[in-house]
């Protein structure tokens, strides 16, 4: 079926332009991907240690560095700022450049800002481990680091915004809405939260409230739009069809935009805050089901008739898994906001399960997909082995699934026990023992899968991928059933 055309002649002007864009972005995007992956690995190890610490505290000794209270925040912050942000930067830069048809002439300050960001994360994580953390969820880095991070962020996001301003393509595509919005949303909440908590602190309750608002908005206003921008780009790209419905995309984007800023305070429902605060946040979390449904249906309809790509395309498989996990993430968030249900999960492992679903099951999986797509374009070689990709996928998929179940169950048991205020609090930790062991096992799965991935990426970076004109598939592609010529 494939047109036996020569490589050069098949490459239209379009393709040449795309290749030029890719070339111009090689250094910064690879920089963000690799340093993000390094942090991912650090974070996973910290997470495993923290997880072990919970059920077998004697295993790692009594050194304060190894206490759960430091490992867990170090792990979460390394995950978010080290991995999620950097891989997000990489993907956002690349997609924005592609969609705006911009070749980046100079990338020096981008790379410098990337290094500064990494410096900030390093100081922050080390600070948390040394006991200098602030103990505010997702803002644990020692006071002051945020200024450095924000400065670096502004340069990086500035590049994305500048590309958009200088775009050579008139049409503004859905992914661009999300990426651009995320560029502005995040600094808004990061700046506000840090300023109010660290520099103009008021009552402790208000600080806690702001902290929870930040944690909520971080997820909904950065993690979610970056990953959604990526799914909106990759899914239609892979199937070669337009996104099914403009109206649905439009409605879901704007509902997310309107709801995103309100979330977070449901964390303290039943707490010492005026009732309307958690109530408004909780309602926003429930309303988020609307964009979730719209987005899910839109993707589904876009893929109609092309679901077989999940079978062979690594990118499609990871991205679709992530898009599914997005539903779980939003539904869990809505469910936890309902008093009747959420009370059992408040302040328990269940909440961690919610965050990990969003951060790993949804965001990271989508980003893995993006890396599988982008990397060969930047490095000029193809992934070494479909089997390795399969390994990465299944271990990650089972890992997150198992972790979600373990954490939710642990949370349920812990929460029920913690509410039985006639009984010793320590019991609430003991009852979840089995599930906490399960969580550690799930971590091992995830670490294993990412070791494989890291190795694979390393080979790609060393240009040791396959030198081939054919993409690497998870399973050999069934060309019999294909309707379109291969080079389309």
């Amino acid at each position, binding site marked *: 079926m494939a*047109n036996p*055309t020569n*490589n050069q002649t098949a*490459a239209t002007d379009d*393709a*040449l332009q*795309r*290749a030029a864009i890719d*070339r111009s972005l090689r250094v910064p995007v690879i920089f963000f991907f690799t340093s993000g992956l390094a942090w991912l690995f650090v974070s996973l190890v910290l997470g495993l240690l923290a997880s072990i610490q919970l059920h077998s505290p004697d295993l790692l000794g009594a050194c304060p560095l190894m206490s759960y209270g430091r490992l867990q925040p170090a792990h979460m912050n390394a995950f978010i700022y080290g991995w999620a942000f950097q891989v997000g930067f990489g993907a956002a830069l690349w997609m924005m450049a*592609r*969609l705006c048809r911009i070749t980046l002439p100079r990338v020096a300050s981008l790379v410098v800002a990337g290094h500064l960001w990494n410096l900030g994360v390093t100081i922050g994580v080390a600070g948390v481990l040394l006991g200098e953390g602030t103990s505010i969820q997702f803002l644990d880095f020692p006071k002051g680091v945020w200024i450095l991070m924000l400065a670096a962020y502004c340069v990086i996001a500035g590049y994305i915004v500048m590309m958009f301003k200088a775009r050579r*393509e008139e*049409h503004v*595509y*859905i992914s661009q809405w999300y990426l651009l919005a995320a560029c502005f949303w995040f600094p808004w909440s990061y700046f506000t939260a840090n300023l109010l908590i660290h520099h103009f602190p008021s009552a402790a309750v208000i600080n806690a409230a702001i902290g929870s608002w930040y944690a909520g908005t971080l997820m909904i206003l950065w993690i979610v739009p970056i990953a959604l921008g990526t799914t909106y780009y990759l899914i239609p790209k892979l199937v*070669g*069809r337009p996104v*099914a*419905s*403009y*109206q*649905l995309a439009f409605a879901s984007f704007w509902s997310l935009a309107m709801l995103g800023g309100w979330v977070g305070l449901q964390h303290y429902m039943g707490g*010492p*805050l*005026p*009732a*309307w605060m958690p*109530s*408004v946040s*909780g*309602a926003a979390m*429930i*309303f988020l089901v*609307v964009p979730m*449904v*719209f987005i899910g249906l839109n993707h589904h*309809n876009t893929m109609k008739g092309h679901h077989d790509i999940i079978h062979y395309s690594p990118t499609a498989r990871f991205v679709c898994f992530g898009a599914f996990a997005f539903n779980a993430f939003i539904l869990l968030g809505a469910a936890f906001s309902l*008093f009747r249900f959420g009370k059992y999960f408040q302040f328990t492992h269940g909440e961690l399960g919610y965050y990990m679903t969003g951060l790993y099951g949804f965001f990271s999986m989508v980003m893995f997909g993006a890396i599988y797509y982008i990397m*060969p374009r930047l490095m000029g*070689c*193809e992934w070494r082995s*479909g089997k390795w990709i399969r390994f990465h996928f299944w271990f990650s998929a089972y890992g997150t699934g198992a972790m979600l179940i373990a954490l939710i169950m642990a949370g349920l048991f812990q929460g*029920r026990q913690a*509410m*039985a*205020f*006639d*009984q010793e609090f320590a019991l609430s930790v003991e009852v979840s023992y089995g599930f906490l062991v399960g969580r550690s096992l799930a971590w091992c799965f995830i670490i294993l899968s990412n070791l494989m991935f890291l190795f694979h990426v390393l080979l790609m970076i060393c*240009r040791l991928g*396959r*030198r*081939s*004109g*054919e*993409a690497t*598939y998870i399973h*050999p*592609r069934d060309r019999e059933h294909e309707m379109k010529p*291969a080079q*389309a």
Partner: protein
Amino acid sequence: MSPSDSNSPVHSDYDEKVNILTEHVSAASREKPDPTEGNEPPPLIAIMIAGFALIVGAGYLGGTNGGLSNDSFTFVEGYDVPPVPGGGVIEEQKPPGEIWLAEGKKQYSAICAACHQGNGQGQTGVYPPLANSEWVTGGTEQLAMIILNGIQGPITVDGQSYNSLMTPWKDALNDKQMAQVMSYIRMSWGNAEQVAENSGMVTAEMVAHARATHDIPGMKVSHLEGFDKDLPGAKVDPITMEPIGGGAAEGGATDEEPAGEE
């Protein structure tokens, strides 16, 4: 991995001479065009589910917003679950006697359990048992003397003889703590059935009396002769810790707190 399906240049592997960084455009050229938006109408189901979510969310907001006033705090009926069935009673309402014994257990685990073991069985030949020990279940005076002063030399416990030494504990425990430990060992491991009626619990004032009257360095079993009797002071009920008849009953009102804060 690649299905090496043809000799077509698009699919074949590059040979080593090709500079893949500059000449490799195949990934970019086999790509499908950049995505755009289509115009399918939103499916009905989307609108239905969205409507449902809106109703639930609005109901939630209406039910919990507390009138949007800054002075009204969350109160939702049923937010505090009732105690788990079969669980104990509320901590604050635990009977005083139970708390007393729980405190005693803490002291015991911290100090005595190292030798006499958590189950009070001691260690054969080295540390005598406290369970089933006539020294423990007998009169409170001799027991108080043993713990305050320690004991050395031969001693027979539950038919076994020991010849060793226990250091005094008078400096390690104050009167209240000592009383709690004594109550605990008298009321545990089946000892409760063997102590004289109503004399299981020991109060701080009893211990204070013993401390004041018996300071015997290097105490031996022979010193205990004639002290197999209970210390003076109001006996208390093992559950309520209320004084029971006899003894110094006149202090009834103040004896409600036999714990006698030191």
